[in-house]
Structures are given as structure tokens and as C-alpha cells.
């Protein structure tokens, strides 16, 4: 005889943490991997052992450790996102947004100023380039304003 139990698989391109190992998530979100491991059995011994745990670290050392963990976590998130974007870019390299320049003269004008020779279509590569450019411009504006203070 046999029984059949429901199993659902959700495949998503846009998840940053879903594909990460528990240890990586724990590092990003400062969780204790033993206490938060998905599917772990409740463990009363852990609670008892916590009562005998060593005294907390000195505040400064603790802050440095936490900031280091924060930086590592940020870098892990950034790396994961970059990888996802690269994958999306590869999957989407054929995507093109075409429009009529007469209907959107503002967009056509802006496009022609950034990407010479194009005024009616935006490819995914162009979109990513524009995002990058926007980031750099924002950074430049920020630096310029900071210099003026």
C-alpha cells in the first residue's frame, strides 16, 4: 500500500535569500544557526546550556563584531543580488521596449542624448546601463554637494 503527501516547489528568479544556505542567511540576519535552523527539532538542552554560557563580550568588541558581521552580510546580499541581475540580464537580453517617438518625444530626446543613434527602442542592456549611470550621477551629485558644505 502507499500514501501520497503533498509537496510543492516554488521556483522564483527574484528571491535573494531563498536559495541561500541556512548559514549564509544566519550570517546576513545575525541569527544563531542552531536556534533558527529550519525544521530543527526543539531542543531543551540548548536552553539549559544558555544558562551556563559565558558572560557577554565587552561592548566595544561586540559592536566591532556586529559591524563586521553587518558588512559581511551586506556584501553577501549585494553579491546575491548581482548574481541574480546577471542571470536576469542573460535571460532578458532579447527584451526590447519599442515606442513611437512622436508619442513620447521627451523619452526619445532623453534616449538620443544618452544612447547616440537610438530614439525609439530600449533594450534590457540599455536599461541596465541607465540604472548604472543614474547611480553614478547620484553619487557625483552627492560628492559635489558635500564639497560645497
Amino acid at each position, binding site marked *: 500500500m502507499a*500514501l501520497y503527501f503533498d509537496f*510543492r516547489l*516554488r*521556483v522564483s528568479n527574484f528571491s535573494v535569500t531563498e536559495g*541561500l544556505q541556512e548559514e549564509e542567511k544566519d550570517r546576513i540576519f545575525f541569527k544563531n544557526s542552531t536556534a533558527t535552523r529550519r525544521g530543527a527539532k526543539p531542543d531543551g538542552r540548548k536552553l539549559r546550556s544558555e544558562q551556563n554560557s559565558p558572560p557577554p563580550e565587552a561592548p566595544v568588541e561586540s559592536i566591532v563584531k556586529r559591524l563586521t558581521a553587518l558588512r559581511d552580510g551586506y556584501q553577501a546580499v549585494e553579491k546575491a543580488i548581482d548574481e541574480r541581475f546577471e*542571470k536576469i540580464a542573460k535571460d532578458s537580453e532579447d527584451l526590447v521596449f519599442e515606442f513611437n517617438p512622436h508619442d513620447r518625444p521627451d523619452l526619445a530626446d532623453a534616449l538620443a542624448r544618452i544612447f547616440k543613434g537610438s530614439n525609439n527602442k530600449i533594450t534590457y542592456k540599455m536599461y541596465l546601463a541607465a540604472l548604472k549611470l543614474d547611480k553614478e550621477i547620484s553619487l557625483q551629485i552627492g560628492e559635489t554637494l558635500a564639497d560645497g558644505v
Partner: protein
Amino acid sequence: MIKIYKFDTDLQDFQEISQGTFDNPVTVKSTPGGLASAHKLWIRNDDPLKFYNTVSIDIPKEDAEAPGVINVGHRDTLVDFDLRMLSGDVEPTDAEWAAAAHWGTISSPLDVQHGNQSRTKIPDLGEAGAADTGFYPFWVKITTPGSITPGERLFYIRASYIEGVV
């Protein structure tokens, strides 16, 4: 009756996996080409008047079985995925996962001579004269190749057995 459970960390309790209704399925999330995640589940007999031997757990690749048992809109083929199962309480190491059979089966009884070295065994759930209602853990790991289209796929864990009355 044999049941499969997951552990709800919010409720701090075992939750029965539904059969055919998808009211409470095991839900695994994955990204194409991403890192695989392992899920811990438990098999158990909840009937003190029954025992089960020759128990076998697997996840069929194709929707060719369970006639009349599953009443869900559709089931998907899993041929393109890499699915592995191992038994035991502690999460398998990378080396153990690497050595595990693709689409392997976990079965009873335990190998008396070799124990559970290959982590593919669980004990029989009781015997004549003595039911066993303990929880026996096993792990499932799915790796999704980069070529897979995002979306939801429904399939099932199959538990086969021979039932006896205590």
C-alpha cells in the same frame, strides 16, 4: 496510519503534511541555478494498534502513479530537477549529499550489520505486538537547474509500506 510531518518553528510543533488537498504541503523554495536548500521532515505511525514494515519513502519523478488517490489539478514532471533524500537527525554534510543517490529511496528496516552508514535507512515502525509511534527524521534536498522556468510545481512524497495489526 503512516504520516509525514514538518516542524513549524513558529508554533513549535509538528504539522501533518496534507494528502491530496494541498492544505498543508511541504513547501520548498528554489531559484534556478541557485544554491539548494535542505528540508527536514519526519515519518511516523500515529496508530498504537498498527505496525508497519518494509516502509519506503520516495518522490516519483513522473505523475504516473497515485491513481484515484490524488485529486489535484495537475502534477509536474520533475525530471529536470536534482532531488536527493537522506535519513537521520543531523543535517547531512555536503559530502554526504554529494554521495547521495539522485532520486534515491529511503527504506526500512535498518541494516543491522551496517547501521545507517549510507543514511538511506529508517527502522520498521513497530512490529507484531509492539507499535512504534516515534518520529523518524529524513532530509530532502532539491537543486533547480538554471534552465528551469520560474513557477509553482506540485508533486508528492510517496510512502509505501506493509501494514500489520499489533
